[in-house]
């Protein structure tokens, strides 16, 4: 399966980051998940071109690359909105009112979990537990964890993003 290392699809600097990660990990198929992390950090999501490039560089067949990218919930094959809002649905948050928060966001912004608003401003995601149980219910706005939130608080935060 191993071929000569492929050429990056474009001059975009971000490909060089990915290349560097691939080299550091020895271009081995083992490194697939690590490199996909790097690629998703760089581009925000994994498009077919990225998957093809990473697979070719690591000697992983397309069916395997795609299989891994779709298995793990952290990886996304769709572009995300400008901001992300991750509602924790861990047990403490669930019994603490996460359901009401999701309902409110869905109603007000007209998006369900996993969806992005029409203006591409906000993506609503859910997490199985972010480990901030003492702050239940918790929501992560971009990378900022906020706790003990009411649906109203969440909407206020979203407006201020």
């Amino acid at each position, binding site marked *: 399966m191993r071929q000569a290392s492929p050429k990056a699809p474009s001059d975009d600097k971000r490909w060089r980051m990915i290349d560097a990660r691939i080299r550091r990990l020895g271009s*081995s*198929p*083992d*490194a*697939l*998940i*690590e490199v*996909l*992390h790097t690629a998703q950090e760089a581009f925000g999501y994994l498009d077919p071109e990225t998957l093809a490039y990473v697979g070719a560089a*690591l000697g*992983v067949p397309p069916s*395997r690359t795609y*299989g*891994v990218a779709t*298995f*793990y*919930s*952290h*990886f996304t094959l769709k572009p995300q909105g400008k901001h992300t809002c991750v509602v924790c*649905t*861990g*047990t*403490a948050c*669930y*019994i*603490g009112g996460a359901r009401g928060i999701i309902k409110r966001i869905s109603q007000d912004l007209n998006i369900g979990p996993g969806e992005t608003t029409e203006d591409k401003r906000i993506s609503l995601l859910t*997490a*199985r*537990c*972010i*480990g*901030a*149980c*003492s*702050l*239940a219910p*918790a929501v992560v706005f971009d*990378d*900022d*964890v*906020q*706790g003990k939130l009411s649906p109203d608080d969440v909407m206020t935060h979203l407006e201020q993003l």
Partner: protein
Amino acid sequence: MTETSPPAGRSPRVTANVCQAAGCVSLRSVELSKDLGDRLQKAGVTDAAVKRVGCLGLCAEGPLVRVPETGQLFSEVGVGSEAEAALVEHLATADPTREPRPKPSSFFASQVPIVLENSGLVDPEDIDDYIARSGYEALTTALTEMTPAQVIDQIVVSGLRGRGGAGFPVGIKWQTVAKSTTTDHKYVICNADEGDPGAFMDRSVLESDPHRVLEGMAIAAYAVGADSGYVYCRAEYPLAIKRLKTAIRQARRKGMLGQNIGDSQFNFHVEVRLGAGAFVCGEETALIASIEGQRGTPRPRPPYPAVSGLRGRPTLINNVESLANIAPIIRNGGEWYAKTGVGRSKGTKVFALAGRVVRTGLIEVPMGMTLREVIFDIGGGILDNRPFKAVQTGGPSGGCLPAEMLDTTLDYESLSEKGSIMGSGGMIVLDDTSCMVDVARYFMDFSRDESCGKCIPCRSGTTQLRMLLDKIVEGNADMLDLSRLEELASMVKATSLCGLGQNAPNPVLSTLRYFRSEYLAHIKERTCPAGVCAIASGEAKTS
């Protein structure tokens, strides 16, 4: 990393240990430590230091600051808050030699910190601070004074069992890996893929005391003959990952990891591998597949990873908390460790206490403490004085115990006898506002979403169980559905390929055992006693 420190050579009169674990960080504790430094400087206080430390435990009342010299704990210290002003005042004037030490609050009084002994005391991003508190002493002792077999002996004597959930004796696992022969590498993997909803023990340990885990891994590697290791950590824990990577870099520079550790012949290299959002990767064989860059689907065991694991080589997998226990066991001896605990459950257990209790947070208690003591003494009872209904341990693989079981002791055997499990340490308290059928459905939903899809009983069974529970909470089920639920639950338990599927029915089985009347109310009277489930009244039942 100290924000302000007194002139070199002089130790500070008082120190403000500012919690920098994820809970408090989200409440702006990083800004707080900067602000405290500024305020002290402005006030001309030169003999007080501000130090960034790991988790102080009482997460619900963050941001937390402890002054170890006086024993004072300040909670809800927001930037610019009154609490902050009081803290600055205390720092400026307190005289630790005269100040009477306050009695520890009931949250801390009955805790026994072994795993968390450094938590909230050391700076997690400073190896020197760790070393100053006997850090890497155990590793050095092991390398210079003990044979690998002697190290394993101490672990066996300690009676330490796996803290990831299953409770397999750690020493025996080590022996198996040590005995396995290979032509080249053996591996040590630290399982930091803490996936149970409602559990944050491992996150907190990694954020508060990462070197402790690395030291445990290095000792394990020495004992079993491994030369490489991985920490498999959830990608959802960015702060833990950052501190781990910092710790690895520092340990390498100090010669505590890498080639010829402590000038011995022993080499051990550690790398961090990120999970990518799959609960099933907490299962050993799935975790290995994931480190190998594949879909995280489990495979049948045997062969066990101890014989054939990562890349087909003998592999030792222990979870964060298990490994965090290693250094103190080696430092103080296995017998010392075995003195704490009860029956076949030795030592302490860290729990993430959450849900409807007054004081939530991270606690470490000796095995054998009762649920009542944890929930009512440490946790301070139920919020708003509501009645206690159930305590959930072990997450989606565990069960719910009712009030009659509150005197159950926290040990592996008692909990599983009562139909729950110790699990990794999530402990969620439920009051009368929770519907137990809804809670069972919540966990089944979790297991269904996290099923890897490989084996039929788990893939399809969790879906079918969830559909039956849907019927019940919607008021569309009959008694036949209830018997189907029970029959299917035991079938999924018996036939699934891995622990995820085998344990997925536990929340259903335990709620059926203790809260059957709630199921019957949904089915026969078409009402939800807790008022949680929206039961459509008067709808004709068609399917």
